[in-house]
């Protein structure tokens, strides 16, 4: 009698169950109608092969090489398969100055539920690739929705001669390659991926949302990437019928951060993308009480109350060597007394923000947000 094993989550593997049932049926049929033991053996081996195929994880194991992941139609020329669509978020996540390219695959006919503009729900089978380049390609990350509320994460590290990239183990690769003098890039492990991309069953794809794909792009966004005709945006997804339940107002008036000045818009957009992924009301970190993912309502309602969670709000974190001066999350007019700025510009691993994914300070962003605190909020 074949044993049926449980997978990691304690469920019976469907393929194994079916194959085992077939095996038992074959045994019974053959033993009743066929007396030639050789035939039994052949049938038994065939069904056993099915079982083994299921055990080897056909369709479940991650490809060892990036070339097998479906991103490319021709790996030698690095031609992207036509079903994988290139996109570029208007507010990029800081990754120590890496140049990044991103692609999405949506299964044919499948749609994204956009009823919550800030928390899109993706169809099972949706797949995202992100390529990181520091002078040359270093890694390509893949996130794939494998079942409702379930995502898989893999990273492929490019070899020296850039001919292929290979699957990195679940623990990632620390200090993988030098990206600046004395600073080495970490390839994240699966747990690191989950830190940013999992939150109470929500789909957390930071760079693919109504705001990030809005055609009303912010030209002052730090490290803004050039949008070109090879990329898709919100209008493309609407035209292709890939979004359901998108609020009507966003079809006529693309979402944008409602800043009082262009500088405020860019500062809040940067904070939205780089801090709001964790610091928002829907995240498990909501108990910290910082709402940096501003609500995307056309009338900007809710934005002020979200900002009140940081602007003029005392900080539990104290800036070292700040004397008796109190620390605020953001103190209008005073970036030097604002813990948000301090934590952006330190790479002390205990104090830095974001706490992972960066070892180099984003000085352009620090300058922008310091000016916003000093000039726009200080008036």
């Amino acid at each position, binding site marked *: 009698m074949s044993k049926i094993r449980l997978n990691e989550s304690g469920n019976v593997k469907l393929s194994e169950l079916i194959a085992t049932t077939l095996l038992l049926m074959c045994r019974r049929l053959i033993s009743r109608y066929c007396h030639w033991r050789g035939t039994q053996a052949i049938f038994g081996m065939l069904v056993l092969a099915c079982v083994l195929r299921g055990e080897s994880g056909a369709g479940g194991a991650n490809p060892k090489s990036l070339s097998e992941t479906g991103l490319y139609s021709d790996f030698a020329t690095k031609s992207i398969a036509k079903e994988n669509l290139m996109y570029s978020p208007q507010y990029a996540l800081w990754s120590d100055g890496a140049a990044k390219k991103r692609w999405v695959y949506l299964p044919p006919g499948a749609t994204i539920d956009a009823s919550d503009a800030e928390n899109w729900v993706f169809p099972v089978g949706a797949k995202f690739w992100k390529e990181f380049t520091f002078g040359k390609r270093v890694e390509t990350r893949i996130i794939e929705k494998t079942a409702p509320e379930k995502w898989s994460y893999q990273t492929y590290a490019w070899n020296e001669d850039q001919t292929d990239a290979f699957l990195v183990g679940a623990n990632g690769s620390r200090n993988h390659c030098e990206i600046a003098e004395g600073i080495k890039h970490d390839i994240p492990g699966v747990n690191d991926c989950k830190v940013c991309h999992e939150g109470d069953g929500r789909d957390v794809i930071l760079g693919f949302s109504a705001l990030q794909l809005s055609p009303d792009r912010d030209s002052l966004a730090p490290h803004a990437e050039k949008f070109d005709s090879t990329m898709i945006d919100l209008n493309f997804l609407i035209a292709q019928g890939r979004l359901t339940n998108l609020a009507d107002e966003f079809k006529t008036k693309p979402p944008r951060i409602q800043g009082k000045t262009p500088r405020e818009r860019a500062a809040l957009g940067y904070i939205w993308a780089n801090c709001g992924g964790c610091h928002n009301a829907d995240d498990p970190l909501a108990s910290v009480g910082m709402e940096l993912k501003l609500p995307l309502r056309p009338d900007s309602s809710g934005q002020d109350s979200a900002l009140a969670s940081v602007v003029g709000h005392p900080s539990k974190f104290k800036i070292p060597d700040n004397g008796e001066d109190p620390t605020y999350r953001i103190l209008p007019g005073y970036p030097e007394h604002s813990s948000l700025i301090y934590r952006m510009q330190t790479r002390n691993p*205990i104090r830095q923000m974001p706490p992972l994914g960066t070892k180099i300070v984003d000085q352009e962003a620090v300058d922008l947000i310091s000016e916003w605190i000093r000039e726009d909020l200080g008036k």
Partner: protein
Amino acid sequence: MGRASRKFVFPVLGLLCLVLFYSTRATGEGSANQSRIDHGRQLVLTHGCGDCHTPWKLGANGPEPDSSRLLSGHPQELVMPPAPPAQGPWLVNASATFTAWGGPWGVSFSKNLTSDKETGLGNWTEENFIQTMRTGREMGKGRMLLPPMPWPSYQHLTDEELKSMYAYLMSIPVIKNKIPDPVAPSAPEPAKK
């Protein structure tokens, strides 16, 4: 029994049944919760959480955990001098309380695991606790936990086991005790503007 009295028999019986049903259900829930807390206590004891999170004191028979400070972390009044340099064969140093640790990672202080909202885990959700053990990061999202916290072993605990540990920690006496921030090894600080 008079006719009028009989009229009330069935409604009263029905009411009694309802009360009995809900009270046993409530008792059942309470008992399930107590069983979870008991399981959590057993796990916290067997996994040695108190070895670092309950300060030790010198008793009649040598060092022993100070049960009056159960799982409340490094005592806030105990201000530690700088740790000895992390070098040589004695690479790691510990305070007499086993709540402050110096090593190549800097200096770490055992966290207050009681449910005090300001200084302990009072603001943590069950999910925050589980994710901390799974990822080795504060609340599952923040900075890395520092040695000697053995989260790489604890990450293999099941959700049910971690939920039980959390339930137990939420049930023990609340102790207000603010532990110091950890100290990183000579990392550059941002320039003052």
